[in-house]
């Protein structure tokens, strides 16, 4: 990339008002930092809640993310949109937390017994799934639970990419920067995520369409 193009790109980031706020934070403007916290608190907590299913843990993690932003303020260089940088920090935190939760779960499962009984067999999984089959029209609350469970069937990276795509309306390039992946990897990740989601939710589509029509 030529230096002129690089200069244009950097100026593009500088037009992001949150990059401007972060530059003020870099100069120890605490009020600007407060504005960033206000602007991003719900968005961060929303993503963390979908990942962790625990609103208190989501708030703790969001606070940790803001603390990291503050600690890194003097080294901050605007090389991307502020949201991309923030969600990169968020993604690292969520990944570490999920890894630690999974290790803890492994230990507690080993401690509980031989571990074989607590893992559901494919037959049990099939039975659980059949319990959710749309033999009747589900109400909104039940449908919400089905969607939540479907999201949980995705692996951590698919889920994070999908959440950033859906709720943060991020481009593939921004998701790639936030998750430290190539754009092609994000494309594949999102395709698998959408395909898995479709397989999980397809049986409910007719019901939800009827319900939507009824609501209208």
């Amino acid at each position: 990339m030529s230096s002129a193009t690089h200069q244009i790109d950097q100026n593009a980031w500088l037009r992001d008002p949150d990059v401007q706020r972060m530059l003020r934070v870099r100069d120890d403007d605490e009020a600007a930092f407060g504005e960033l916290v206000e602007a991003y608190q719900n968005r961060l907590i929303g993503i963390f809640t979908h990942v962790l299913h625990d609103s208190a843990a989501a708030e703790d993690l969001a606070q940790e993310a803001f603390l990291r932003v503050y600690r890194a303020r003097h080294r901050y260089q605007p090389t991307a949109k502020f949201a991309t940088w923030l969600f990169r920090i968020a993604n690292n935190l969520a990944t570490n937390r999920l890894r630690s939760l999974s290790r803890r779960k492994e230990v507690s499962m080993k401690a509980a017994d031989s571990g074989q009984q607590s893992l559901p067999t494919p037959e049990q999984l099939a039975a659980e799934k059949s319990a959710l089959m749309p033999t009747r029209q589900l109400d909104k609350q039940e449908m919400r639970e089905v969607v939540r469970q479907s999201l949980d069937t995705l692996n951590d990276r698919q889920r994070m990419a999908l959440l950033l795509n859906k709720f943060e309306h991020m481009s593939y390039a921004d998701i790639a920067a936030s998750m430290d992946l190539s754009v092609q990897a994000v494309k594949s990740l999102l395709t698998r995520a959408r395909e898995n989601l479709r397989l999980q939710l397809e049986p409910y589509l007719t019901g939800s369409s009827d319900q939507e029509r009824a609501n209208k």
Partner: protein
Amino acid sequence: MASDKEKEELVAYLDGELPDEAASRVEKSLVDDAAVRSDVEQLTKTFDLLDLLPASKASDGFAEKTLTAIRTKESVPDTNTAEKTSPAEKSQSNASRRVFAWGIRAVAFFGLLFVATAGFNGAFKQNSEPMDELLTELPVIQRLDEYQEIGDVEFLKSLNESGLFDERDKAPQD
């Protein structure tokens, strides 16, 4: 069933991430192929179902709690105080703080020196008192056996009165 590559193109098309040429290709297949249209419809509807997920919100006072926690962890000065302090005042305040810190260090050093000196003197004095006493009494100690044979002072007085010591004093002159 579409291939993996075709699925990727469909999803990227729905996300508006396909270049014009590839997008035109997908649009043509949408017109020509009912299966592709069905795939796109299902992908769109299942994606839209994610809107049912509840939107999480920060609890009341989250921002304030976060700022307080960061202030505590990072010892950040309060915004109001920081705004009222000019750079010159800040520099002066830093200089005063440095002088005060050095003052505290100097007081601590001399205090420590005084305590060490006093402690040494005290210990030396305590140890030297019995030694002085022994040195003063040394002549007595050296002839203690003889004094003990004499018995008491009254006996020595009576010998002196008898003139015994006078004769011994004169003897060398003879």
